[in-house]
């Protein structure tokens, strides 16, 4: 049983990781805490759902389209909201608030579309296969989530370390002015950053909707706060940190249920967050950032 719970925790953590990676990317590159990531998560799940249900689009294509949709919505936010704000001297506070406003708009859109009902992907969407390894069961979708997370991890590493775009993003994260002086087209890089971030969030949304058989307009809510926790615990700007932290959060949740204090999970997770902020504000793997005033 414990082994199964371990698997449950890692799978849950993987979804958190996919979500938080997107979050972290925008935060690191542009110093924007984009609360609307939760709305993008939700809307992408809806896009995939309606594509499959109404137009009978095959799953892999729907997944791809929904992921792209997530990216595009995020880019739209950058162009409509964050860029004008940066141009007018927005602070970290005002960008956070603007993202909250954007999130409200997107979520009320989702509510209107779905009529506030809970939906489920049609049955034949994925093979309902389950593998058993002794005591442990792993369903197809769970395996898919794990595989996707690994692929994304590798992809992110390659992106940030081997590709020009990635290096541009990292330079921007370090110092935007220097990046501009080096001739990096910061506007375009910012758009790409948002696109990738939105795509990751969207991917997480679709996978989650599939895995837990439910798509509804409030599904993103718990993920935003946990995304925060993942960033803090993992360490600002660190990809590995975010992933490890997400796994930790997933496991912490699962094991608080195992030992019977499951409903205190918010206390556990945010207690962890708090402790890190107090004693190790750089998180597990964070670079030395100016965190203290």
């Amino acid at each position, binding site marked *: 049983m414990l082994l199964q719970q371990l698997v449950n925790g890692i799978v849950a953590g993987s979804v958190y990781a996919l979500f938080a990676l997107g979050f972290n990317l925008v935060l690191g590159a542009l110093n924007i805490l984009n609360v609307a990531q939760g709305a993008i998560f939700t809307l992408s799940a809806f896009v995939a759902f309606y594509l499959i249900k109404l137009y009978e689009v095959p799953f892999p294509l729907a997944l791809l389209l929904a992921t792209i949709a997530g990216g595009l919505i995020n880019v739209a936010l950058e162009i409509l909201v964050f860029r004008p704000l940066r141009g007018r001297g927005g602070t970290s506070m005002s960008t956070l608030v603007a993202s909250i406003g954007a999130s409200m708009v997107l979520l009320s859109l989702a509510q209107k579309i779905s009529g506030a009902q809970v939906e489920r992907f049609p049955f034949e969407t994925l093979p309902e296969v389950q593998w058993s390894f002794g005591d442990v069961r792993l369903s197809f979708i769970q395996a898919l989530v794990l595989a996707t997370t690994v692929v994304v991890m590798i992809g992110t590493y390659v992106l940030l370390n081997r590709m020009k775009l990635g290096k541009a993003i990292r330079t921007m994260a370090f110092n935007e002015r220097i990046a501009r002086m080096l001739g990096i087209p910061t506007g375009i890089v910012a758009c790409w950053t948002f696109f990738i971030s939105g795509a990751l969030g969207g991917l997480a949304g679709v996978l989650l909707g599939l895995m*837990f*058989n*439910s798509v509804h307009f409030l599904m993103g809510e718990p993920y935003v706060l946990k995304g925060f926790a993942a960033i803090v615990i993992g360490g600002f700007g660190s990809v590995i940190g975010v992933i490890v932290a997400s796994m930790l959060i997933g496991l912490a949740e699962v094991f608080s249920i195992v030992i019977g204090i499951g409903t205190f999970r918010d206390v556990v997770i945010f207690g962890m967050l708090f402790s890190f902020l107090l004693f190790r504000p750089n998180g597990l793997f964070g670079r030395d950032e100016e965190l203290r005033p």
Partner: protein
Amino acid sequence: MTGLYAKFVSRARTGVLATAMAVGTAVAGMSGAVAQEIKIGVPLSLSGPVAFAGTKMKDAMDLAFEEVNNSNFLGSMKLVPVYADDMSSQPQGINVTQQLALRDQVSAIVGYTASNICQASLPVAQEFKVPTLQGDCVVPGLNKIGEYVYSAVRPSDSFVEQLVAKVTPLKQFKTAAVLYQRENPVFAHLLGVITEAFKKQGVKIVATEAITSGADADFSAQLTNIAAAKPDVLAILLLGGQVGPAMVQARQAGLDTTLFLGEQNFDSSEVRRVAGKAAEGSLYPSHWFAASPLEANKKFVEVYRKRFDRDPDTFSANGYNAVWMMAQIVKKAGSGDREAIRQAMETIGEMDTIFGTAGKTSFEDRLVSLTPFFFQVKADGSVEQLQ
């Protein structure tokens, strides 16, 4: 609780209120037409987390109001619904109640969606002496609020108890587990009820697990825990939108032969659609189900299907039923006067309803009395009524 406030209200505001009433009735009198229009306030959760239930209620209530008026059930009196959105929030619930009572001068109130909003808003309706029939809140205690507040549904306590008593010997349960939602007082309360019911039947509770909130979708950890205890039956006390996923995940977690047991919301279309095969064998009580053979219900389902292109669920039924009950009450009262309506609620005796096995109900202690159906879900998704 309300007494002290009421005293304040009457002492401090008699003059103002009297003036307000005078202004109000003058205005109302001016708008009087040949058909007497009776305004009925309908507060519902049309946005926010509980909107999935409130919007269903509204659909069906629209239908019901139309039927009442078009069929001339009340003769020259017409019911005019005044809808208000409480936004799934308590302060707003109190707000709209107050406005329906004072600004819109409704003759009566029918509606409310969520239990905590009922708890906050009904005392206000009582204070303003507006006869109220709440149609969807099943948390216990609402009938104790006052003589102006009646309930068209009742807590599922007795239904669930009866179900457990009925099926335990039938299915020979030895062990049971419970999965419930903590954030919702109705389910937290039912936990106690069901645990007692099982114990009384000699069934051992081997696991109790909680989901924190109505927005949760991942039950794998809790279900893995439960699976380790291998219960014969699993009681699922979650929101309708969570029940389906819970069943599917339960099977995935290894609860292959366990039967699921729940309360009314097992009957919503969402559950069967979402759970599919996993729901086979599920047991639940319901004061209503879509295929109920009652004439009045068959008509309702047909009309609803034609208009909304889907089957009605518990929330729709609750809404529809509440409006029709109110219509009968208004008929007995003979007018839109609040006192007359309150009197009518107290003295009405037997009423027609689409609920229950008998199609008739009356108020007992300001709650409707209902004989529930008991159901088991079959392999093909249809339900079989247990005798």
